């Protein structure tokens, strides 16, 4: 009796620590139990969906994974354990076999069973060995419950982390095309999905139009060619109409999840996530969280659409904070009238971010947008109050510098370039944590390079082009370009 109590106490103390996985706990617990009961082999059965699965075996001190289903029959030894029997010996096995339930002491729940075997012998397990095995299994079951709840807590934390991470993406997404790509990449990554596809509703045409698809490696592909009429039999149309799932959808409902995106009760699109290739189950808790994300995605997409509409009506570009082209043209004319009446000099500068397309293609439009935003902020910080910068289109920025000669403007731009080279743009979801940026700048001045707005812009653009041909990351006035490249004057 004393020896059994010592065994139990030792067992209790050895298992009384945090095991991160069920596998690690069972390995440790079964190893100790096999020695205490003097079994050569121990099988671990775990209950799942009304069946028992042999999941692990310890054979002569080697821990092995197993994958065998046991369809229980009413009279079987394992069935009797699940019904509450304390221990069972097998009468049909060719060697000594003892079954004990994996059930926490004092509880009714049976988590599974342990099978102790002596394959080389028919020597039965004694009464004392049976009692020890049963008590150790109860202790192990107690620890199994604790380990499982620990794992559930960690999964919950992971989901919260996903929630925080994705919420940040929702908040920072400005354009539909770029925003949804980042959102989908985040969803695929956080929920370990094979693929996520987004379709947006074109209400006038009553079709779902493909937007973007992201695969398990985070690669995005356009779905722009895909259109699904809402009136047809397509499964997506069924989901959008609110029809019930068809038999095939029922079969793969654990691996494909359809998430309608709705805003104020109106469907605006459909998010489809799947694990068809890996055939992994998407669990109910994750589906619940994905559904709540779908609500946020719907809002984000809707906000982005509204944002784009508003932006087209605005004087200022919301991304860079600079004036839009229309407003710039108006101001440029006003400045020209002023200098024509004998005012001080006026320069115009054209800036083009080097390799901006590469930034967009490699890191996504989200990062490209951030780069432009930072550039806009830097320009506003470095310019004089009387200067007037504007986003001319894409990554091109123009600046009017009243009361500045070409040389003055080139000096101001030289200082801007120095600051620009030090700017670092963070890159999420990439091994490159941040990127740098340079620009090419061309300068033209009134009146030596032209008297009309279009001429001055053209000359500044030619100077910029000359910087690009010289290797980018520099400033050049039109006059300098003429000296260095006489052919520029001929063109």
């Amino acid at each position, binding site marked *: 009796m004393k020896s059994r109590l010592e065994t139990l106490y030792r067992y209790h103390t050895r298992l009384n620590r945090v095991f991160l996985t069920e596998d690690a706990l069972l390995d440790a617990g079964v190893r100790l139990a096999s020695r205490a009961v003097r079994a050569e082999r121990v099988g671990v059965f775990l209950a799942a969906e009304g069946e028992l699965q042999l999941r692990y075996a310890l054979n002569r001190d080697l821990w092995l994974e197993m*994958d*065998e*289903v*046991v*369809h229980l029959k009413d009279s079987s*030894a394992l069935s009797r354990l699940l019904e509450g029997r304390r221990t069972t010996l097998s009468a049909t096995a*060719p060697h000594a076999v003892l079954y004990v339930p994996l059930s926490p002491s004092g509880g009714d729940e049976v988590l599974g069973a342990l*099978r102790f075997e002596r394959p080389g012998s028919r020597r039965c397990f004694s009464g004392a060995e049976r009692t020890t095995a049963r008590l150790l299994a109860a202790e192990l079951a107690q620890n199994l419950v604790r380990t499982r709840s620990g794992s559930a807590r960690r999964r919950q934390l992971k989901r919260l982390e996903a929630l925080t991470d994705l919420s940040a993406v929702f908040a920072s997404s400005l354009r539909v095309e770029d925003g949804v790509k980042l959102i989908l990449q985040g969803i695929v990554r956080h929920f*370990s999905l094979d693929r996520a596809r987004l379709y947006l509703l074109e209400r006038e045409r009553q079709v779902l139009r493909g937007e973007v698809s992201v695969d398990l490696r985070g690669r995005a592909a356009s779905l722009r060619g895909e259109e699904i009429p809402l009136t047809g039999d397509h499964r997506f149309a069924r989901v959008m109409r609110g029809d019930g799932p068809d038999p095939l959808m029922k079969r793969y409902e654990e691996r494909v999840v359809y998430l309608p995106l709705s805003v104020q009760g109106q469907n605006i699109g459909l998010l489809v996530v799947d694990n068809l290739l890996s*055939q992994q189950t998407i669990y109910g808790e994750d589906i619940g969280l994905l559904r709540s994300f779908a609500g946020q995605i719907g809002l984000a997409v809707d906000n982005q659409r509204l944002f784009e509409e508003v932006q087209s009506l605005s004087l200022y570009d919301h991304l860079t904070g600079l004036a839009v082209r229309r407003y710039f043209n108006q101001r440029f004319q006003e400045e020209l009238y002023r200098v024509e009446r004998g005012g001080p000099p006026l320069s115009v500068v054209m800036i083009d971010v080097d390799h901006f397309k590469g930034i967009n293609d490699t890191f996504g439009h989200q990062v490209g947008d951030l780069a432009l935003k930072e550039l806009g902020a830097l320009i506003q910080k470095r310019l004089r109050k009387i200067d007037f910068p504007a986003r001319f289109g894409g990554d091109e920025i123009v600046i009017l510098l009243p009361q500045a000669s070409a040389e003055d403007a080139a000096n101001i731009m030289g200082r801007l370039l120095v600051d620009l080279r030090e700017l670092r743009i963070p890159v999420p979801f990439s091994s490159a944590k941040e990127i740098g940026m340079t620009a090419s700048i061309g300068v033209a001045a009134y009146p030596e390079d032209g008297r009309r707005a279009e001429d001055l812009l053209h000359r500044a653009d030619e100077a910029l082009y000359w910087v690009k041909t010289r290797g980018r990351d520099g400033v050049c006035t039109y006059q300098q370009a003429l000296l260095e490249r006489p052919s520029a004057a001929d063109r």
Partner: protein
Amino acid sequence: MRELNLWVLPNSGYDTVPSLREHLYAFHREHPGIKVNIAVRTPRSLWDRLIAAAKEGGKGPDVVQLPSYWTSTLARLGALADLGELDPVLDLARWPASLRAQCRLDGTPRVHSLPWWVEARILYYRRDVLAQAGVAPASLATWDGFKDACRRISKKGLSVAGLQHPVANPNPRESVALADVAPCVWSRGGDLFAADGTRSLFQRERAQRGISDYFQLLSSGAMPLKGESGLAPLDLFEGACALQFSGRRPPPVPRRGPKRLLARRARRHVAAAPFPSGDGTTLLSAWNLGVARSTDVPREAFALLRWLVGGAASASYAQAIGAFPAAEGAAIFGPEDPELRDVFEEAFSRARLIPNLSVLGSLERVFERGMERLVRDVARRRWTPEALRTELIHAASEVDYILSFYAS
């Protein structure tokens, strides 16, 4: 000391780790700076862990064993390294053309795994039991003859000492795998998938008949599921059955333990015949090795892989587990058992592989889930051919849905 994690399937049951450790002594002598940790994974666990490593990163294996027809799928999922990048002059010429195709990502020249060992399914039978049941061995050449033999053995042959069932179940999982039914499907003139890999065929009439053949063995009780103990039923070599499908040579007779007497007696009467498909068509199972894409030590991992698949090492490991080296097949047989050699040579010459389609690993999971539902019906004595038909049609729709996205 560099450590390599080698994940293998349970190639020789509980003996997998000890036999592989012994086999690797020679590798450790050649590469004293490398330590190999062996982990035995079930196919399902291997699949899940490789997928998790490909998706989430984290610690996976460095070298991994896989059914050859998973090569394309795992390569596509980004789980396997391109071996051509590790060895620019990689040459597959020493393996038969059929095995070479199982090393590549479907439709590309990129090599992602190399053949390790193979097995070709044949039929073992007990001469004494067949004689007692009045069955001529020649009648085992066709499936109908095989079924008739099962019936006769159930009626008259079970009186032989130790015999419990006519046929041993080759699947220890209490399930039915693609590999179990494939030769039955082929023997009825059907197929599992279209040759171009764009659609399923297992729901068609001929394939259904083949799968039904296999399930009738289970539902009639001729080939048992697990017993009440949950222990795997004893097999032909342990004296408990009269017929057994296997791709391997007979295991050695146990030297001790309660099973040894029956096993010794059974062994005296064991003979072999081709798989009962009429024309001898059977299944060739090939097991390959690949280097995980996530490995930190690709050179060392490739050195281990190259050593394991090398001629001498592959032959000696295959010999140890009763299988056959991938390059030589049945040619490894010595003159000591000419009858068995002839049966295996015939089997290898007529054997077919499950195709290495671009997403076959995924399709196999779909198919086997359907089979699990049917096995549950068998266990509850509710299985019917109609249930099989319905299940195959549903599984086929699911498979075709996946292929509509991923077929190359």
